[in-house]
């Protein structure tokens, strides 16, 4: 290689490096601009901070929340579902539909998109009973403002995600607002009474056929996880945080992108 060619190569490398530095600087400036926008609101009104927060409600009563406070700290409250489903002394009646309206409130100070993942399963003293069907725990979905993510929810004849239902609220949830109810009723399918085996015993002229119920004594469980993510740059934020490709229309409506199933 001639001396001239070597010099030319060095110049190209230096130019490329300078371009990389500029690219990083522009990226940083973008971040700084975002940060300035972000912090300038805080600065103009010291009472207002940009904190994300979410509250899960059951029949209009908060059962859990997680709101960002400051300095990396969160205000968290965790409660239990179904504690008020029965009145005192009342026993669960199979087949009867009980009120179970689940909603989400934006308890932060920025708008957000929300989704809720529902898990249904059976347990006994030894843990989860995977041989008992979650399908017999009916949480009636309203489909009012919520869309089901079929890709990551229970499908018929598909054991993947058998316990799980993933629902997206299609509108951005403004600060202080509450979603429509994603569910309204909860019941246990009366067909659990048909999941039986029988034992026959004859004694003192009495023949007793005893029916033993597979579901007797087991506990049904419902678990709900509500997730919130910022509305700013929502498409990328949702993909990054939840791993789901979505489309956001001009009016802010969220829709799910069909992916290979």
């Amino acid at each position, binding site marked *: 290689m001639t001396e001239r060619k070597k010099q030319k190569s060095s110049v190209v490398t230096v130019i490329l*490096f300078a371009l990389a530095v500029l690219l990083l600087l522009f990226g940083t400036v973008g*971040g700084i601009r975002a940060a300035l926008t972000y912090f300038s609101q805080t600065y103009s009104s010291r009472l207002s901070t940009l904190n994300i927060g979410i509250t899960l409600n059951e029949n209009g009563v908060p059962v*859990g929340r997680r709101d960002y406070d400051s300095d990396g700290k969160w205000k968290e409250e965790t409660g239990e579902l179904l504690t008020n489903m029965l009145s005192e002394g009342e026993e669960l*009646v199979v087949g009867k539909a009980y009120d179970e309206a689940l909603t989400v409130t934006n308890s932060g100070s920025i708008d957000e998109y929300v989704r809720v993942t529902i898990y249904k399963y059976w347990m006994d003293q030894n843990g989860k009973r995977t041989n008992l069907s979650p399908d017999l725990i009916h949480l009636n979905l309203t489909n009012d403002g919520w869309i089901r993510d079929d890709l990551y929810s229970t499908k018929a004849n598909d054991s993947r995600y058998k316990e799980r239902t993933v629902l997206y609220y299609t509108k951005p949830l403004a600060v202080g607002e509450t979603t429509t109810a994603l569910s309204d009723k909860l019941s246990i399918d009366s067909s659990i009474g048909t999941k039986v085996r029988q034992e026959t015993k004859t004694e003192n002229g*009495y023949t007793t056929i005893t029916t033993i119920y597979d579901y007797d004594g087991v506990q049904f469980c419902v678990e709900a996880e*509500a997730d919130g993510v910022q509305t700013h740059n929502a498409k990328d934020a949702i993909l990054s945080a939840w791993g789901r490709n979505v489309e956001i229309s001009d009016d802010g409506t969220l829709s799910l992108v069909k992916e290979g199933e």
Partner: protein
Amino acid sequence: MKKFNIILVALSVVLVLCAAVGPVWAYFTTYVTAKGGMPVRMGMTTTVSEPDVSKWTKHVVVNNQGPESCYVRAKAFAAPEFVLTYSDQSGFWSPGGEGYYYYAQPVAKGEATSELLIKIDNIPADVRDGDSFNVAVVYESTPVLYDENGEPYADWTQSVTIENEGGQN
């Protein structure tokens, strides 16, 4: 010089990667979870008792000793030459499908039905003291189910059957 170029190129790649990774850090997210559960009681224990078997009549009472309310139905069998008649004084027992007499109300846990009387009407003329007759009582119980409106109903495809044989004059 060559080493200097390689270092510059490597630095450039790192800088570009840093520029790409930056926005991922900026997203605000949060989550909250809650769960709950409740045991299901499906066991059912019912017994039949006959407080009085006399005058060619069985007095059948079904007791619910299970943890939940149930519906009850009963019927009886005897030799073909006997004709059985059913009666009750409470008005809760009434004939229905499959040859059974149905108790109109759910029997709450710890409670019992009123008596269902099952009588042999055509007593043989040549019956002697000490002769016995045989009447088999079959009764079934099934848990009280509720429709979506909370109305109770019975599903007799989910029943527990108990047979009771015996009799005397």
